[in-house]
Structures are given as C-alpha cells and as structure tokens.
C-alpha cells in the first residue's frame, strides 16, 4: 500500500490514542503517508507538496472531464504554506481554513481519499458529500467558504484551549482579500485582549478572486495586526523551508501564550476557482519560476524524488480509478 501525504509522526499517534482524532486517523489511514522512518524532512515536505499539487491538478482534470461539478478553489503555488505551517501542529491543535482549503486539509490529515470522495459528492466523503470542496470538517480541522467569520470561530477554539489550561493552539488561514471583512478585526481585538493562543496565517497572494490588492486594500497588512497588539512576522517566500522555519517559531511562540500573525507573501498559480483568471499572463508566468516544488526539489535526491512522485501518482491514480469504476 502506498500513502499520499503525511502529517503524521510518532507524536501524532501517541496523542491520537487519547483523542477523538483517532477515528479520523483510522478512517483515512489508507492514504496517509507515514513514509519510511528513513525519509528526511525535506523528502516528506516534497512528498506533501507534490501530493497536494497532483491532487489538485487531478481535480481540475476531473472537472474538465465532467466528473466533478460545483466549484473548487485550488492552492497551486501556495503549497509551501500549508505544509510548512501544519507540520508543526499537534493533533490537539486546530486548523481553520477557508474556501481554498484542500492543501490545508491534506497537510493536516493526509486524507486524499476522504477529500476526493467529498468533492465527488460521494457518501464516503469526509463530510458525506454534504460539505463539498469548501466545507470540510474533521477533528482538528474545519473550513468554511464564507470569508472572515472563520477567524472568529478559530479564536473561539483558541479560547477553549485557554479555558482548558491546555497549550494547544488554534491556527487560521486567511487570504489577503478576506481582510476586507470586519469580523476579522473584531476578532483581532478580542484575541489580543484575552491573549488567546491564536495564530493567524495570512496567505497574501496579492489577489482576491479577480481583484488585485491595490484595488481592495488600503494601508498595510502587517500594521493591521500590529494595531491590535499582535506580534507579526512577515515573509515573502514560496520556499517550504523558510515557511517551516518561521512557522515553527510562531507556533511555538503561540503555545500557551497570546495571539500572533504570520503573513506569507505568495502567489496563486491557478485560476481563482475553475475558469476565472484575468491576471496578466506575464505576471503568472513569472511566478511559475518560483513555484514551491521547483524551489524545493533540489534538496531531494533524484531517486528519492522519483520514488515519491511515483508513489503519489500511483496513489492518486488508484483512487481515481476506483472512484471512476464506482461511478460507471
């Protein structure tokens, strides 16, 4: 059996026994990458990012084929955020995500089967086909396609950890465009005031649907967090190592402490959803030069890379074949 993506490590399974998450783990173990213990951190990161990339590219193909319907938002180009941040989280931490949640979900759970089934509207999807692409829920992970409100929800999860005297943290991924929503600032105020263990990760990809940042954002993202008393770190990178280093520090600093913000300047290389990209072609092309896989791949030896890629491709192919057969 091959596995697609991992977030697991020894600690995860240790904790999971005492935790609701055990169900989710069991249900989704099949496509969960444990990797061989011999796999390096760089290999694991590559495997995860490659897994997310190929998963989403497969989704887009299936859409084109007419096998999927509805809508979907891929994170092609932003995989380093999901992987670099989430590798630092424990099972009792919580991730809140938005419309663009596949990468976060896969990095968090490895559950490619549950996610593909979900997006295909199958009863064995992680939310039985009810939630669909943007509404995922499993212990330790929630997403909602309505922008902004998730930040408040994530703050409540942080407050729960605080009330329980746990050092678990709550991480919320939010786009630059969603910073238009007022509830974000209500929450920054509240989280700052009550010193909730909330890490806001702003994936600043410079665009919101069709709108460039210059047309929807005034002032500065970093200053906004700072103005509410959040320590802010900011980085412009698609390098998973860089993300992981800084995210590791931020996760650690949030644990048992107050809220923080991490702003990652990145870029979405795919359409906003399926067929709606009006950005200048040169702009997109230039960003392909820095896409996370190519930035990172040199750190993984050729043979290891081929093995990982083959395993991932195979896992996805098997899944697609299986679902295709079910559907026919």
């Amino acid at each position, binding site marked *: 059996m091959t596995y697609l993506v991992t977030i697991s490590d020894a600690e995860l399974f240790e904790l999971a026994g005492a935790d609701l998450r055990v169900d989710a783990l069991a249900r989704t173990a099949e496509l969960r990458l444990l990797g061989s213990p011999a796999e390096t951190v760089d290999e694991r990161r590559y495997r995860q990012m490659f897994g997310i990339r190929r998963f989403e590219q497969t989704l887009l193909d299936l859409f084109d084929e007419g096998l999927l319907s509805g809508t979907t938002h891929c994170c092609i180009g932003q995989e380093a955020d999901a992987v670099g941040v989430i590798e630092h989280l424990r099972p009792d931490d*919580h991730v809140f995500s938005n419309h663009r949640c596949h990468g976060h979900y896969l990095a968090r759970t490895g559950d490619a089967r549950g996610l593909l089934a979900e997006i295909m509207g199958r009863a064995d999807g992680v*939310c*039985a*086909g*009810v*939630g669909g692409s943007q*509404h*995922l*829920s*499993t*212990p330790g992970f*929630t997403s*909602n396609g*309505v922008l902004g*409100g*998730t*930040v*408040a*929800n*994530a*703050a*409540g*999860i*942080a*407050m*729960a*950890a605080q*009330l329980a005297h746990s050092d678990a943290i*709550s991480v919320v991924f939010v786009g630059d465009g969603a910073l238009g929503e*007022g*509830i974000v600032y*209500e*929450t920054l*105020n*509240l989280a700052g*005031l*009550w010193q909730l263990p909330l890490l806001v990760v702003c994936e600043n990809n410079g665009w919101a649907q069709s709108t460039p940042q210059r047309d929807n954002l005034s002032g500065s993202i970093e200053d906004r967090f700072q103005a509410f008393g959040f320590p802010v770190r900011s980085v412009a990178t698609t390098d998973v190592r860089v993300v992981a280093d800084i995210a590791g520090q931020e996760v650690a600093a949030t644990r048992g402490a107050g809220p923080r913000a991490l702003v990652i300047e990145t870029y979405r290389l795919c359409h906003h959803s399926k067929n709606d990209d009006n950005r200048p072609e040169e702009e997109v092309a230039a960003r392909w030069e820095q896409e996370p896989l190519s930035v990172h791949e040199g750190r993984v030896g050729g043979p290891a890379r081929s093995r990982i890629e083959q395993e991932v491709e195979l896992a996805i192919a098997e899944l697609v074949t299986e679902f295709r057969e079910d559907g026919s």
Partner: protein
Amino acid sequence: MIHARVLGDALRECLSEDPRVVIMGEDIADPYGGAFKVTKGLSTEFPDRVRTTPISEAGITGTAAGLALSGYRPVVEVMFGDFLTLTFDQIVNHITKYPSMSAGQATCPVIVRTPMGGGRGYGPTHSQSLEKYFLGIPHLRVLAASTLQDPLEMFRTLLDEDDAALVIEHKLLYPRQHPEDLGALIVRRPIGESGFPTVRISAVPAGDCSLTIAAYGHTAVMVAQLVDRLAVEEEIFVELVVPTQISPLDWQPIEESVSTTGALLTVEEGTRGWSWGSEVAARIHHSCFSALRAPVEVLASASDIIPSARQLEDRMLVGVSDIEGAIRRSA
C-alpha cells in the same frame, strides 16, 4: 423574585452544574451586571467563564461558535435584540451550518439570549422584536422566555442537547414577579414536562372555550391577564396556548385546542407580515381546515418602525386593547 433574577439564577445554576458553560456579552460583568442586570453577580462568582466583551456582536458570536465547536457551551448575551442583526451571518452561515455540513461530525451548540420588545420609549433601534427573521432557520431553535415558564428547565434541556438556540426575553418582563400569579386560571402543562413546554391557560375547561389564542413571551403574559378578566367580567372564555419553543413549533397543542374551539387568534409584538403568526395560520388552517369556523386571525404590530415618543409607540405596538378587540371579534 423578579424575572431578571430568575433568569440570572438559572444561568448561575447552569454555570455551577456545567463547567462547559461560558457566558459572554457586552457590559455583563460586575458591578454593572449587564444592561438589564440579568447576569449580575455571575462574573464575580465565575470570573473565567463570565466575560464582558468589546462591542462586537458578530465577533463574540463567532467566538462562541468556536468555543461550541470545541465542546464548550457558550451563552452569548446580545445587549438589545435589535443588534441580533449583527450576529445574523454567524447564526445562518456558521453556527447552524457546521453540524449539518460536516454530516454530524461537529456540534455547535451556541445559545444566544437577548431582550426584545418596546414599551420603554427606547426608540426605533432599541425596541424591536426581531425574532421573526430568525424563525425557520434550519437547525436553529428559537425560544421565548416569560414568567409563565421556568428558564432553568429550558437552559438545562438546551445543555443536554446539541442544538443552537436563540432565546428571546422581553424588557418589560425583567422587573415582573416570576412565576406569574395566574390566580384562579387553569394552567395545563404537558405531562412529562419537556424542557420546552407548551403551557395552556384558560378560565374554564378547554372544551368550554370558543377561541384559541397562541402567543409567547411578554405578549402571552398580557393575554393571560385578559383571559382572566374577560372570563370574570364578560364570560368570554378562551384558551391561551403558550409555546416555549416558537420555532420549530410543536403543532399538536395548538391543533388540539383549535379542534375544540374552532377558532384561532395569534398575537405577537413584532411587525406584521411574514411574522410568527403567519406560519401558525398557514399550518393550522391546513391541518384544522374543517374544524375552523372562521379564518385564523393574526395580530401583530404595524409594519413600521417603533417611534420614540411614548404615545406614538403605544399606538404602533400591539397592546391590550388591540388584543381585546380581536378576541371580541373572534370568540
């Protein structure tokens, strides 16, 4: 004891019994104890779990949602029911959605409580009864507290279940003695005492009543007094049916009453048009089509804002004389 204290004591009891309960709201901490003093004393006893918040109705409610997703039982006080509008997105697109869209994996049992109602001259934005916009929201319970029911029973039942709930209170009930003194009236409660009972009140046995009145909250208390007075003074006998949960509604008690009386009047303080009574009329006229000797009458306030001037407010809101008129026409 006054109603505000009965509510406060019920909340205190919940805080004591259930460590998952967390109360949040604007200005709810001591010494102030909330704009209507319901939470007075609670923050002193439970400083961690009774929190005064910034003025952020949406943010608080959204935070409560997160607490609820994590297994806590947040109770949000919205200072005036008028400001529920700011929580609407959290209620419709977050709180009531998470359990269902996760196919039952998540629960999000947020309780929002808030005072509705006019009669105090607070003007257009501090006097409304906005519950009608929250009726029929899938997966939301809407409950109306009054001096006719026991709030502790209601809160305990909510804490035993996993549903999100909006509890509406009424400013005019806060200073009122609780429980309501119903004198010689016959009061029937469902056997088995559900936490959300539908209370039935009449001066004579239901079989001798010529009209059913459905009402809740402060309006129900007004009607109860009329039931008594009209029986004593004029031998007009009506049965008042007071649901605790006003959406979704348990139709059976109303149907049972209407099948005997053959007529139904609904009364509410909110504005008319797509109001609580509209659905009651739609459903009861359907299920009791042949039993009804006249169409269901829906009495609600004018479809307008609530003026500040007391004399204008009185004219605009459904009052005792409007109800009395409607009863005379229907009974």
